[in-house]
């Protein structure tokens, strides 16, 4: 099993208007484990590059991990820091949130994301294509290996 790391950022809304970057892994008991955190001015390529470089120094094993993220532009542009050995995935929750902008097809997202075979995936995608070509094009532009099992 490959080690797993989730990366995300969130606004700090209290006294200081900054951004919190988080790397979360899974420990030996299968529980979430905060690996590292950083406070930066905003989520951008510079801040993610800086954060990932520090993460790599602190925990070199992350270079063999599977990374999951919300496709933040800054983070995607900074992934070169981690090299080619990592496996990148996209968080389906965030993808679904973005997909909700296509009205009346929202319910088709999860069956596609959870498709068990290539055939099943294409059948469901064709179904989506017939109802909403825009929604289908949106999903087709994203590498399916990063958000489905097929």
């Amino acid at each position: 099993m490959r080690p797993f790391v989730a990366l995300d950022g969130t606004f700090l809304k209290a006294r200081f208007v900054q951004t919190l970057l988080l790397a979360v892994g899974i420990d030996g008991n299968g529980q979430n484990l905060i690996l590292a955190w950083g406070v930066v001015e905003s989520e951008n390529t510079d801040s993610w590059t800086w954060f990932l470089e520090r993460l790599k120094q602190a925990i070199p094993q992350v270079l063999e991990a599977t990374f999951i993220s919300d496709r933040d532009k800054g983070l995607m542009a900074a992934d070169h820091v981690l090299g080619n050995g990592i496996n990148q995935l996209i968080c389906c929750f965030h993808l679904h949130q973005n997909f909700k902008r296509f009205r009346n097809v929202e319910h088709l997202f999860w069956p596609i994301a959870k498709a068990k075979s290539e055939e099943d995936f294409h059948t469901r995608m064709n179904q989506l294509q017939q109802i909403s070509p825009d929604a289908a094009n949106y999903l087709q532009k994203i590498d399916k290996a990063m958000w489905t099992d097929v």
Partner: protein
Amino acid sequence: MNTPSPFQVNDLFRDWSVLRSQIEEWAVKDRFAFKVQIKDSQQADYICRTPEYQWRVFASHNRNKEIQLKILNERHTCIGRASTIREVHNSQSWLRRKVPEHLFVTRDTTTRQIIDILQLNYGITVNTEAARLARASLVNDRIEHQQEQFLKIPAYLELLRERNPWIHTSLHTVGSEHNPEAQHFQHVFICPAESQLSFI
């Protein structure tokens, strides 16, 4: 309409600013304006802004060096006659104290938001220029306060390293290397030793 006075003769106050702020609260609530007749280290005399009216609060040190209210004429008949611009709710001391109670002022806060929040909470309309000045000074305070707080980060990280020798920390600042106070915070990174050991 006059509300009952929040004071009684012989009331004691911790310091002069407490007395002043309580008078300001009263003035905003009852919409009257006052001015300082005398204020020094021994005494303070606040009177109605319009000279012909009798409202007055006088306090001075008693024998025990406490601040004691000695004269109180609580009837204020000048309501609505005070110059709007000089009303207490347009004073910077009141605005700087009250606005942060209802609004977290940042660079993105607008003067309109300040006016609206005070209208909502106190039923008063603050002068635009007074609200603009209060916003500017609160934003500056916030920045200065942030800079002061960010200067504490190196000492905090040092303490973390002392207590957790395997912790991985990193701080990135920009500015003069020779003058720590001229450095500006950019990023901070913390990775606890437990995370390094527990990650599989």
